[in-house]
């Protein structure tokens, strides 16, 4: 299996497990799910590295978007606590 396919497969496995586990725990905040999805992408990409140059370029863009989402969620929570 090629690296990108392994990454997508691993990520799918982690993400759907998260949905299953959190739903069993009756988690009702969607931002918790989203933040975990973002973090899990980094975990999956580290587990399945290395990637070729072309694969790396697009993966980095994907990582930056997910990092922005994660920072946004965390910032919102921090503001919530501070306000």
């Amino acid at each position, binding site marked *: 299996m*090629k*690296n*990108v*396919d392994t*990454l*997508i497969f691993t*990520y*799918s496995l982690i*993400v*759907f497990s*998260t*949905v299953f586990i*959190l*739903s069993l725990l009756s*988690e*009702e*905040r*969607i931002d918790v*799910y*989203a933040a975990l*999805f973002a973090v899990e992408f980094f975990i999956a990409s580290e587990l399945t*590295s*290395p*990637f*070729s*140059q*072309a*694969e*790396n370029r*697009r*993966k980095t863009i*994907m990582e930056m978007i997910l990092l922005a989402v994660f920072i946004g969620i965390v910032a919102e929570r921090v503001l919530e606590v501070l306000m």
Partner: protein
Amino acid sequence: MSETAWVAVGSLGQSDCWICGEDILSDDSFCRNCGVALAHIDGKREARQPIGRADRRVSVGIFLAMVGGIVGVFSYLLGIVPMIAFGLASFLIGIMVLYLPNSEFISGNVVADSSLPSLLNIENLLEDLDLDERGIYIPSSGFAVSSKVFVPLTITPATKQPPLGLVQSRRIFVTVGKNAEDRGVLLEAPGSGILSAIERSLNVDLSEIQSKDLLGNLNSGFKALGIAKVTSLEYGDADLRIQMELTSFVNLEAKLRNLAPRLSTHIGTPIVSAVAGGISKATGKYVTITSAILDPSNRKMSIVLRLIASARKDGVTGE
């Protein structure tokens, strides 16, 4: 008749002659109507595979993104958070399937066939010049700088350690000392392309890494290129033993050992050469190949390299 027509064999085992359009049975060698010789294109199925695979990938990506979007929107309207998360996950994975590129790997056979003639030319050159000494890999430095191998005419004190400046030389026949016998042939290492690709994929200059990181870097590089896994690397007194598990190029490696024995033993096949070049670059020492044993059935390769002294840093003495 020298003319040849291609015939595409369909799923029912029958197709048309591309010259006259007559029906052709899958086992026909000549057209029953015009008599033209038929060349069956079984390889066409293989050639079409990447496109088919790409189509399938796009379909899967669109399906997942759409399912994710629809489930997400309906769950949002119904207020079921775990289902929104499920939709979001599907949507994300769909986007990833569509956006992340699937590196286009060229069939190993195509690579082997395209590189074989140039390697056979080196073999012929070595044979014509009657060069029996082992090639000496000159340590290079710099990101993605290709490595060079010097094959001496005879081993002399000067040819044992050719000057480092030869890495920049574009000459083939070089003299590295004052005497007439201090001559040899300077070649681009057969694995220099692979080595540069490894450095580019890791974004690492191998000449700047520590010896303890060598195994990890080589393994990651070869794995990223889909060539091999480096399973072990052991330092001896003056040699280095490397065990590899090939994931591709097994046929090329085996074929070269039969067709180009001098190249395989003295300079190394592309993968062996890439390893030797990488070791030479990382250790800053001259490297020669002692042995490179391939076990095609288990796809394993055992390489023994000899490290020769520290490289001296004097100038070029190429002709």
